[in-house]
């Protein structure tokens, strides 16, 4: 645009831009940013937080008695307590849980989701990665140097999704503990096993919670809470053990 705009108009516009953020920052506690669909407001107003939960131990799981448990369940319960609201758990499949956020039937979804799972589904938004899970190859302390997995047999315990990853690095996944003692495990599970990481990383999984898209006040409040929490691997071990 090359038209000349009167000088006073320019000054006013510039002034507005400079002043507006500060004016808005002044009231950012509860009113900025805001939610287009008022999720935070309605959770606080109704005193109830609807959470879609997908079975994925040890992150989140509904037990036989209909009680929710898992590391993410602990986080959500603490978040609800901080907000002074109660949690309504809605068990759903992974896709249905994310869809429930888009349709407004849930305020939050948990189930050990990774950032990629949430963004590629497209119906919901991820929080920041509150926990960076590292899937490693571990070995007994006396194992010695392990440079790569080429030709090595790696025990993949039940429940650990690592067969493909082991193969990609040239190793052979086996279903029984191998003589070499190599095991594929998330790093947080090593504590108490006597195993140590070999330095071989199979995968990084950035774990997130899922929220409705564009509900920025809600997301900010949740992230403020998550950043104040203690180490997540402690929660995971409690829930796994």
């Amino acid at each position, binding site marked *: *645009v*090359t038209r000349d705009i009167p000088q006073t108009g320019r000054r006013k516009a510039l002034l507005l*831009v400079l002043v507006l953020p500060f004016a808005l920052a002044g009231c950012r506690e509860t009113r900025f940013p805001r939610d287009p669909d008022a999720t935070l407001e309605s959770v606080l107003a109704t005193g109830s937080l609807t959470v879609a939960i997908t079975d994925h131990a040890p992150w989140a799981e509904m037990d036989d008695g209909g009680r929710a448990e898992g590391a993410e369940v602990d986080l959500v319960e603490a978040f609800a307590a901080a907000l002074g609201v109660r949690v309504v758990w809605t068990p759903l499949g992974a896709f249905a849980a994310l869809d429930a956020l888009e349709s407004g039937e849930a305020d939050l979804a948990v189930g050990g989701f990774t950032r990629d799972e949430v963004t590629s589904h497209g119906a919901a938004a991820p929080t*920041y990665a509150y926990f960076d899970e590292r899937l490693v190859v571990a070995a007994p302390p006396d194992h010695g140097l392990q440079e790569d997995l080429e030709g090595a047999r790696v025990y993949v315990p039940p429940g650990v999704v690592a067969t493909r990853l082991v193969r990609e690095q040239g190793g052979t996944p086996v279903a029984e503990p191998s003589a070499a003692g190599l095991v594929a495990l998330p790093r947080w599970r090593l504590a108490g096993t006597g195993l140590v990481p070999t330095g071989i990383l199979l995968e990084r999984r950035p774990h997130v919670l899922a*929220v409705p898209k564009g509900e920025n006040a809600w*997301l900010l409040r949740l992230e403020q809470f998550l950043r104040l929490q203690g180490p997540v691997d402690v929660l995971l071990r409690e829930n796994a053990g």
Partner: protein
Amino acid sequence: MTDRHPRLPEAQRRILARARRLQVLWLVALTTITVAVYFSLGNSQAMKTAWIEDLLSFVPPVAFLVASWIEGWAPNDRFPLGFIRVTSISYLVAAVALAGVGLFLIVDAGMTLIATEHPTIGSVEVFGMTVWFGWVMIAALVYSAALPVVFGRLKLTPARELHDKTLWADALMNKADWMTGLAAIAGILGIGMGWWWADAAAAIVISLDVLHDGVKNTGAAIRDLSDEMPRTIDDSAFDPLIDEVRSHIDRLPWVAKSRVRLREEGRFLTGTVHVVPRGGGVTPAELEMADRDLRALHWRLRILLIIPRSRIE
């Protein structure tokens, strides 16, 4: 560089050298801007659009640097008239690129709007405090809007002195860049207010601006290359040099009638001057003298062919 551009007077050569240094400095500044904006893109369509406009801002200065370099090449057997038109070509290239991307951005933002996409902006941790990422985006946008305004002003004078349309268009786009920043900031503040559509709407405003610049400059470039009578650099009037040439020719004692046809080749004016000599004759010496005097009138006057004729319709 001083031995280059033999067609330019010493003063213009110095201005050109300074303008080239200014553009190199600007490219460095622009790189810092695009990096800053890239790392604060978030999910904002307006921010993405502003970033692509920043990327586009690389085209005119690079076109200027390349063109003013090629322009200094010595004429050879294949290009006996030199490379003075390169400036016009680079101007056209820059303008068409601008228009094309403008169109793309409008479609892109329009689709975001139609899909009723709600932009999500999370938080970052700054010195142990959780801060809405929108503030970071706004800070980057303020930086990206402030620098071009300064550089745009600095480029206007050399653009006028050199009659360089690429540099001129570039300076105007830079000067207007604060409006892009403002629109993007408005989009992000809109998201913060809970107006999910504000972001895509701001993006459309920015892309309209890009398209407008592109179309306007493409038109001007095409008219230049179609041998339009020369216009002033801001395209507001015919170049006063036309009248100067005309009155100079008409004042010559041996000229009965004349017709001046000029066009722009880059920063230079070329063309033909038809003259009906008084008493039906003109000597080669008179023609050469007239040619020399015309060139002395202004550095931009080059290759004016003075052609004697028996009559002019």
